[in-house]
């Protein structure tokens, strides 16, 4: 459970700043060229805190790792820093900008921490090295357990100030793991830390998804002897059985307006079809009627369309249905097995699992069917992609290490990194929306 961080926002204006017109430092949507160089020295101990070295590097290294994962930043090598850390100033009053410009930094983050009773106080500032200007600053107060979250919060702030776009560093990933001996739902930070076991169904749980406000999880569980759909509040843990009809109740996805769930039901005839139900579990509409297996529905970000998997052509492929008219068009034509569609929050692309020559890999395709692109190669089975809420990252499951683990990568396939480790198989990852309540 996340702890409340009391953020005391104190914007410290240094010298004559005037109006800082929102300068765009990084054009986030332009094709990747050079990365923005940023220097992040260790945070400074401003008062008595035990375990100082660990805290100092923990704070700066989490911010550094977040920015590095974004793919937009190059971290200036700390060994080249010219400044003397002991005499350095974190407020910006007496920073020697030339020291930082000389080693190639264009932005600089400086922070410090102190302890007040059982709480830790952190103040951190972002500077524009080229202009010698203060960009933004924050002061946070929290428990020692909150340090990572505080670092993620400031990394999000840095992203926002330099790119104009919200960062995803406070988001979480839900996934399934059998490390306890049975498949249960787990949560972790997007970088793999702070992993928590969420369910104790002691059965088989599958395919978690998030409500758009990030406060509820929805998933399938065999707890009661049948694949049924459950919801569970993230903060309070209250669970509810939402759909428990005879046959299959699987693959739920929450609508962008938060009011409906699309899922697969097979009822009694064994034929898997797509239905929409409301938050009481009542059927609103039936979207498919064919003899084929229709599974894995996924809403478009505008709620107008649903991508899903159907084997109506003889093999599983991805189709798109317009919800209002129920008109269906086929999206994938290459290969003989394309499943697990996930619609990018940007609305333009769909990621999916494709099998070619017995190898499973992650692909993306534009919603009009063009621009098919393979993102993973030569590394075991790569499946179940979902997108970060900014559409810049994809999380997926890969068996490349021998067991299935969760990996994240950028939307162009670069920057693959494992976010789970340890024993057991980790699958079915689902990236949370922005979690404004953290």
């Amino acid at each position: 459970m996340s702890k409340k961080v009391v953020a005391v926002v104190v914007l410290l204006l240094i010298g004559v700043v005037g109006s800082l017109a929102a300068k765009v430092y990084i054009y986030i949507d332009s094709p990747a060229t050079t990365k923005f160089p940023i220097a992040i020295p260790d945070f400074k101990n401003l008062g008595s805190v035990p375990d100082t070295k660990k805290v100092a590097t923990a704070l700066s290294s989490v911010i550094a790792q977040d920015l590095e994962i974004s793919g937009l930043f190059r971290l200036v090598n700390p060994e080249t820093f010219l400044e003397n850390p002991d005499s350095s100033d974190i407020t910006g009053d007496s920073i020697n900008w030339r020291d930082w410009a000389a080693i190639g930094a264009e932005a600089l983050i400086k922070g410090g921490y102190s302890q007040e009773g059982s709480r830790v106080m952190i103040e951190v500032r972002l500077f524009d090295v080229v202009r010698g200007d203060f960009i933004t600053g924050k002061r946070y107060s929290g428990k020692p357990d909150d340090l990572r979250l505080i670092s993620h919060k400031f990394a999000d702030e840095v992203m926002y100030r330099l790119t104009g776009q919200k960062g995803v560093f406070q988001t979480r990933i839900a996934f399934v793991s059998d490390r306890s001996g049975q498949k249960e739902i787990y949560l972790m930070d997007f970088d793999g830390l702070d992993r928590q076991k969420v369910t104790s169904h002691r059965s088989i749980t599958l395919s978690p998804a998030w409500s758009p406000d990030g406060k509820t999880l929805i998933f399938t569980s065999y707890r009661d002897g049948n694949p049924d759909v459950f919801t569970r509040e993230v903060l309070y843990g209250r669970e509810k059985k939402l759909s428990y009809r005879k046959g299959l109740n699987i693959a739920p996805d929450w609508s962008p307006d938060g009011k409906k769930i699309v899922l697969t039901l097979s009822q009694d005839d064994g034929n898997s079809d797509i239905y929409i139900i409301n938050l009481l579990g009542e059927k609103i509409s039936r979207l498919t009627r064919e003899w084929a297996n229709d599974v894995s529905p996924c809403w478009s970000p505008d709620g107008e369309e649903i991508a899903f998997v159907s084997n109506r052509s003889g093999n599983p492929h991805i189709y798109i249905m317009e919800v209002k008219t129920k008109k269906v068009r086929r999206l994938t034509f290459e290969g003989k097995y394309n499943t697990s569609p996930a619609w990018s929050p940007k609305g333009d692309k769909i990621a999916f699992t494709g099998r070619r020559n017995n190898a499973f890999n992650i692909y993306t395709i534009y919603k009009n069917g063009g621009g098919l692109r393979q993102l993973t190669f030569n590394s075991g089975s790569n499946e179940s992609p979902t997108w970060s809420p900014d559409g810049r990252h994809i999380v997926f499951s890969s068996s490349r290490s021998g067991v299935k683990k969760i990996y994240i990568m950028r939307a162009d396939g670069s920057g693959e990194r494992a976010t789970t480790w340890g024993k057991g198989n980790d699958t079915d990852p689902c990236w949370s929306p922005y979690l404004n309540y953290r």
Partner: protein
Amino acid sequence: MQVYILKGGELLMIRKYTSVVSIILFTLSLLWCSSCTKQVAPDEEEGIAGGSGTAGAQEGLTEEELEEARRRVEELKGKKGIKLSNIYFAYDDFSLSSQAKKTLVEDAAWMISNSQKKIAIEGHCDERGTEEYNIALGERRAKSAKRYLINLGVKSGQVSTISYGEEMPADQGHNEEAWAKNRRGAFVIK
């Protein structure tokens, strides 16, 4: 009783008591088979999702075949040593092979002879492919077996179905041998 089969597209006269139904089933099974060859490339081992949806017709089952099977069920009923056995499926397929049908005849005989026992048919898949798609496939496999059993005289209320997709393999191996063992319809006495 006379049976004439005339050449060259002329009338096919059949036994009176099966009459028109047999022609329809036979024609439909031909049509189903022809649609098979359109969809499956020669080197593909995948099956197609069949299903004509016609009442009584099941994966090209003719009335004759069904009667023969029912007869064998009658023969086996009450016999000592009949077993309740699992059936197995081809990759990405839920149709019943002739071996599966043979096994189901004995399974039906067992169930009719033990009609007070409730049976669950579990549909399973091998580990390849997407979990959700495999749960749907497992459901088809379980229903496919149940439908055949009902055609053979088993009461619907005695049999329930459930799909586990790829979630509960019988063999944890990652090779063809293990996968073949996992693509099963498993019979469980409840």
